[in-house]
């Protein structure tokens, strides 16, 4: 990796850590340990199912919230506070700044996800007292969640590069919500006619397909994930994030800093 990108990424990570972003792990740990103790007492035979569902959904939601709330400020805050002036007056290209910020935020989320994953496995061990081979599938779900974060990071950065933090948050959350129902939207488009069909189809392919990245339900039921889906999702997420990041770079390259 270009060294300047690495420096910017590392500084972005440091900022997140010093702004106490990783404190969310405490809330996550409390939620999960509370849930594990509670389901252990009230459910019969489905403790594991509940812990996996709840744990992975929490990993995904906590991460998405962090990705959006940090991501929307990554560029706009630097412009607002004018910290960018002393960065861009150095031999740093604007695209390097955007890509560095992306990797910094993605790195923060990967570290955060790692600790949350440890929490999920700990809760699982607490309710089922041992690990089985099928539990390894949780790693696939976690991998898909990280792919989801990459897309959300890139979207937050794109909106941050031309909009205010508030609007960026609204846009990013809208994309996340609609993207979570992308399969339903595609189904609706297939049933619709005329202009509605084309509009729904356009929207369905424009928003990221988070439905395809959500395998939490099937993994909770110990259903295996096809290798082909892993490959497809990897390529899709990387391609989508790269496209959105390129759009962010295009916008930012032309932007006058106030």
């Amino acid at each position, binding site marked *: 990796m270009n*060294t*300047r990108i690495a*420096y*910017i990424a590392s*500084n972005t990570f*440091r*900022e997140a850590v*010093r*702004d106490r972003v990783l404190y969310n792990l405490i809330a996550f740990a409390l939620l999960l340990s509370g849930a594990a103790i509670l389901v252990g007492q009230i459910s019969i035979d489905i403790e594991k199912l509940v812990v996996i569902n709840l744990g992975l959904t929490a990993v995904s939601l906590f991460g998405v919230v962090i990705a959006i709330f940090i991501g929307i400020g990554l560029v706009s805050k630097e412009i607002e*506070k*004018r*910290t*960018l*002036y*002393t*960065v*861009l*007056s*150095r*031999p*740093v*290209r604007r695209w390097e700044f955007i890509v560095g910020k992306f990797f910094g935020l993605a790195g923060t989320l990967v570290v955060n996800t790692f600790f949350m994953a440890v929490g999920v496995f700990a809760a699982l061990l607490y309710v089922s007292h041992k690990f089985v081979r099928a539990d390894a599938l949780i790693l696939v779900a976690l991998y898909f969640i990280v792919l989801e974060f990459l897309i959300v990071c890139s979207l937050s950065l794109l909106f941050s590069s031309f909009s205010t933090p508030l609007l960026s948050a609204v846009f990013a959350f809208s994309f996340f919500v609609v993207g979570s129902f992308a399969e339903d939207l595609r189904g609706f488009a297939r049933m619709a006619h005329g202009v509605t069909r084309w509009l729904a189809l356009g929207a369905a392919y424009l928003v990221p397909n988070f439905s395809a990245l959500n395998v939490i339900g099937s993994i909770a039921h110990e259903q295996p994930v096809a290798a082909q889906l892993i490959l497809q999702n990897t390529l899709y997420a990387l391609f989508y994030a790269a496209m959105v990041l390129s759009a962010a770079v295009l916008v930012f390259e*032309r932007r*006058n*800093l106030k």
Partner: protein
Amino acid sequence: MAAIDIQGLEKTYMVGFWRKQPKCALHSLRLTVEQGEIFGFLGPNGAGKTTTLKLLMGLIFPTAGCARILGREWTDPEIKAQIGFLPEQPYFYDYLTAHELLEYYGQLSGVPAKNRKRRVEEVLRQVGLLEVRGVQLRKFSKGMLQRVGIAQAILHDPSLVFFDEPMSGLDPMGRREVRDLMEQLKLAGKTVFFSTHILSDAEALCDRVAIIHKGRLRGVGAVADLTSSVQGKVELIWQGTQVPASLKLLGVECHLTGDTVRAVVAENQQDAAIDALRRERLRLIAITPVRTSLEDYFVEKLRSAETTAGRTA
């Protein structure tokens, strides 16, 4: 090769919400700054100084025109390795310490890793912040942040340094230190381009100055040339508190300060004024030709610009 060669740089903003109107912040600026000089870019607030600096730094894009810096296109990112920039009222990542911030900027500027730590400490010492290098910037005062700003601008030993209002927020001692630093930079062969509206700083430091007002260049020249034109007046200072009646008759305005009197008279009245003082047996201390100060030149340029604008309107 000029350090800075600006060719018709222009910036127009569209302002307004519904019906956007063009507002020209900088009108076709042409300016050359030679290597090794301290160049002052003077103008009142809102004159276009910061716009010019932001254009040169590539932070905003011009509507027209171009520039060359150290012989290369100003848009060439590599040229920035040889440039230092202190923005007006700088703000930095306040979660970092002064040392961490400079280390980070050193990395981005390509300062070799083996020299970086030594260089960071060197500039921190130079701006008087070595003792507080481990303190987070959120605990720094405005003056300390200005010093950090100066440190980051010179960290990578640039050939050309741009300072936007470098004295802002500094106490008299700090201002003196910055003036000394600029002189050291000049002695080391660096070019310093700084914007200010504090004319005494410019007069004390600059080899040449340019005056900008309402986005238009109003005058450029060597400080020595601009301030040496004799006004055809002399200043007389004598001891005592008495003003001879004949001097009053000449219509000379006198100012009493302590036990001396100061009067400015036209050159053709000089002999008559001295005779009047002798008759009254007053002790003459000094006779000095009155020269134009940079402030006089600045005010005159701004007034003539206002007059021209008034006539055009």
